[in-house]
């Protein structure tokens, strides 16, 4: 049996209430989806039009759907953490065991960073970047679908223990050793953690290479670097960081894997291992990672502020310089995550100063956005609401961060809820608000109709009020000495009321999320009223608004020529229409090999978690074979003839008038 199933035994299958509940929930949802698809006979359509698609617009939408599901999972975790912290005071031990609590906050952190924020961003990159640079596709369509499916495989991995048994890591989101070593975490939780991050990280790395080459090589003729839209610029910076740091993550996790699987001693407490090295390595990935998340959000804000102020972005050059500055400085601040671990005064001082230094370009960006609004004809649609909300939360969180960048202060607040409040301010108030703004802004481009404004506004107000209600108490609790990852505290601390206030905030945020779901449903129902026939609902400035919504499969029937920074805005002003001469268009064929490759890698990871040797070999050989098959395939494109393009364009014109 152990040859067949490795460590996977019946005893490992779900038997605790939360894994059983998870299994039941996932099974019911699964059955519902399968029944729906079978009833409507949609399987073939789903497979052909979506799952095997190499169209970045569809891949982008799939990323966003999966990220939304993961946001739901991460939010449930957040609720469970809060409930425990509100109940587990004094004589009461709350409703979950300490071990379960630790698994929840680990999963919450990993899901929100890797599968929510990164997933949403990958979605927006796929949807928007090719359009903004006037391209028909990304550089490597096959890598693109592979990235998506590796991401999905990783996302399944985080939830797999619900169904197949075992547990999740109880180590905190970065699985710091020696706790994550075999000696202290003998279960499969850390292995699930390892493979979900390793697989989805590989997807991110491939995506980073893909978009880097796309931006550098596939811009429309005339679009020099300094004519690129700001979202393209900040995404480029983000990609540079991705390709610089994700190899560090992969290597670091691989070393931990070797420790656990091969009995090596990189980070063990004995045999000469050095756990501190892991912490240094993982943070030299981890800190730049937050800039991978936030830089694209800066780009989104730059687009939105310019569009809704109906003005050119002020200080474009300084925004570009600021983004590049942030990119470089992002690689020089990681040690502020462990000031307290004895690097010495000189090293701490260097990293403290660098940490403060990075606020200079960041502040420059905020001032540039405010200057763009100055004397602009501002229209307050919901994307602008998110932006203004961002300015407030981000300024608060930024100042909280500067405070913590002082090593002396950090010794006081290190690993307290103050830190938790700080990074939630940056990631929710910075990155997530930007993502919501971007999704609202580009939704009509992807679907052809705008989102309901009223419900969007309700959602925004719930989010921002709930956010402050939820996290201001955590700043205060941090100053009072409440450490992070706390599953129990004494009543005499007097912390309970603040935890309850934070929970009320969480409920308000949940209402916001509910309004967002409602907003999507209502908008789809009312899509006829909200239809966008112009392709340019916001009076936009950049090339993505020059084409119809949703864009045809080839994006641009004629590749635009770029002479200006805000090319579409300039075109609208000059009212020139170029002569319509169509040519044959080459597009990539759909391929299922991305799914198969990622499926085999998934099997490999699963086999490694449970030590099933034969399955690991099958997975590895399968994945290699898929890549070899793909490399032999030279028939990867199809042609849309020029007359066909002319016909499709004419049909669109008659439909939209």
């Amino acid at each position, binding site marked *: 049996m152990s040859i067949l199933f490795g460590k996977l035994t019946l005893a490992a299958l779900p038997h605790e209430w939360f894994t059983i509940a998870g299994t039941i929930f996932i099974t019911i949802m699964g059955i519902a989806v399968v029944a729906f698809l079978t009833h409507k006979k949609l399987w073939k359509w789903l497979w052909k039009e979506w799952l095997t698609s190499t169209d970045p617009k569809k891949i982008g939408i799939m990323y966003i759907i999966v990220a939304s599901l993961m946001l739901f999972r991460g939010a449930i975790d957040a609720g469970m953490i809060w409930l425990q912290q509100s109940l587990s005071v004094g004589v009461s031990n709350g409703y979950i065991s300490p071990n379960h609590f630790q698994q929840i906050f680990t999963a919450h952190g990993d899901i929100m960073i890797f599968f929510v924020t990164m997933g949403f961003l990958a979605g927006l990159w796929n949807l928007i970047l090719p359009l903004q640079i006037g391209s028909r596709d990304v*550089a*490597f369509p096959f890598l693109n679908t592979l990235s998506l499916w590796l991401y999905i495989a990783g996302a399944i991995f985080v939830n797999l223990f619900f169904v197949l048994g075992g547990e999740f890591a109880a180590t905190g989101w970065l699985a710091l050793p020696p706790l994550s070593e075999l000696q202290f975490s003998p279960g499969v939780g850390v292995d699930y953690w390892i493979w979900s991050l390793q697989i989805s990280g590989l997807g991110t*790395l491939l995506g980073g*290479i*893909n978009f*880097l*080459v796309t931006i*550098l*090589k*596939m811009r429309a003729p005339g679009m020099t670097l300094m004519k690129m839209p700001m979202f393209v610029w900040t995404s480029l910076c983000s990609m540079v960081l991705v*390709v*610089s740091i*994700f*190899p*560090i993550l*992969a*290597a*670091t996790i691989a*070393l931990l894997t*070797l*420790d656990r699987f*091969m*009995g*090596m*001693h*990189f980070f*063990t407490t*004995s*045999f*000469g*291992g*050095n756990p501190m*090295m892991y912490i240094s*390595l993982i943070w030299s990935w981890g800190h730049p990672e937050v800039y991978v998340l936030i830089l694209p959000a800066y780009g989104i804000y730059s687009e939105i502020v310019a569009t809704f102020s109906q003005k050119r972005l002020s200080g474009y050059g300084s925004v570009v310089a600021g983004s590049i500055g942030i990119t470089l400085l992002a690689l020089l601040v990681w040690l502020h995550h462990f000031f307290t671990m004895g690097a010495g005064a000189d090293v701490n001082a260097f990293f403290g100063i660098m940490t403060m230094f990075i606020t200079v370009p960041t502040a420059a960006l905020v001032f540039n956005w405010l200057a763009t609004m100055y004397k602009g004809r501002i229209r307050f649609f919901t994307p602008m609401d998110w932006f203004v909300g961002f300015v407030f939360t981000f300024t608060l969180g930024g100042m909280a961060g500067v405070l913590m960048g002082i090593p002396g202060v950090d010794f006081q607040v290190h690993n307290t809820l103050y830190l938790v409040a700080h990074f939630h301010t940056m990631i929710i108030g910075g990155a997530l608000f930007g993502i919501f703004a971007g999704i609202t802004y580009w939704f009509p481009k992807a679907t052809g109709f705008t989102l309901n404004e009223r419900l969007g506004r309700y959602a925004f107000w719930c989010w921002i009020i709930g956010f402050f209600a939820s996290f201001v108490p955590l700043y205060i609790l941090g100053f009072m000495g409440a450490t992070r990852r706390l599953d129990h505290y004494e009543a005499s601390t007097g912390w309970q009321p603040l935890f309850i206030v934070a929970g009320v905030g969480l409920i308000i945020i949940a209402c916001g999320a509910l309004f967002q779901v409602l907003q999507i449903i209502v908008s789809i129902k009312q899509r006829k009223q909200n239809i966008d026939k112009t392709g340019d609902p916001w009076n936009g400035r950049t090339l993505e608004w020059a084409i119809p919504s949703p864009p045809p499969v080839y994006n641009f029937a004629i590749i635009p020529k770029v002479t200006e920074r805000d090319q579409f805005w300039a075109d609208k002003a000059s009212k020139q229409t170029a002569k319509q001469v169509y040519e044959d268009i*080459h597009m990539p064929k759909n391929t299922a090999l991305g799914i198969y490759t990622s499926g085999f890698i998934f099997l490999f990871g699963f086999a490694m978690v449970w030590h099933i040797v034969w399955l690991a070999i099958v997975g590895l050989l399968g994945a*290699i074979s898929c890549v*070899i098959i793909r*490399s*032999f395939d*030279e028939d990867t*494109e199809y042609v849309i003839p020029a007359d066909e393009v002319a016909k499709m364009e004419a049909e669109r014109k008659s439909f939209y008038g």
Partner: protein
Amino acid sequence: MDEHEKNDKLKLGFWVYLMTDLIMFAVLFAAFAVLRGNTFGGASAKELLSLPGALANTLILLTSSFTCGLAILAVAKKDKIGTQISLGVTFVLGLTFLILELNEFSKLVADGNSWQRSAFLSSFFTLVGTHGLHITVGLLCIIISMIMIWRRGLTPSISGKLVRLSLFWHFLDVVWIFIFTIVYLMGTIK
């Protein structure tokens, strides 16, 4: 899209990939530098590693890089047989390198100096072994390329693949030079 434009993008993409691989190796080098003194009472690099063996391996790998270069010259001349012969020689040299390395590893393990013995040996096996794994992947790619050339000839697409393969092979050479210097030279001469 024409082949030239495609190869152009692939080449840039491949360069970026090589740089990411280099960063990964940098992590392994850093780990080795931190841990190489941590022998935990076991044998050190000076006692375990043989400089002549490593030198022989270095020369074999350098020669294979030279023959790989010859293959690319033959591709430029559209010389199908010349390409195949040069690739074949590269493959044999690469395989020799790999066998010698595995031989060294098995001797170490047989003498009780496996990767489980100390943090130093963990980092040694990981760093050198990862390079060896890359060589294995390279060998696999050489076989696939030779099959492709045999079946389809030197099409623009395959020529592009061969250029990228040679980049990969030279890159492994560069990494090996660092391994030779930092692991073997600095480990044994002191």
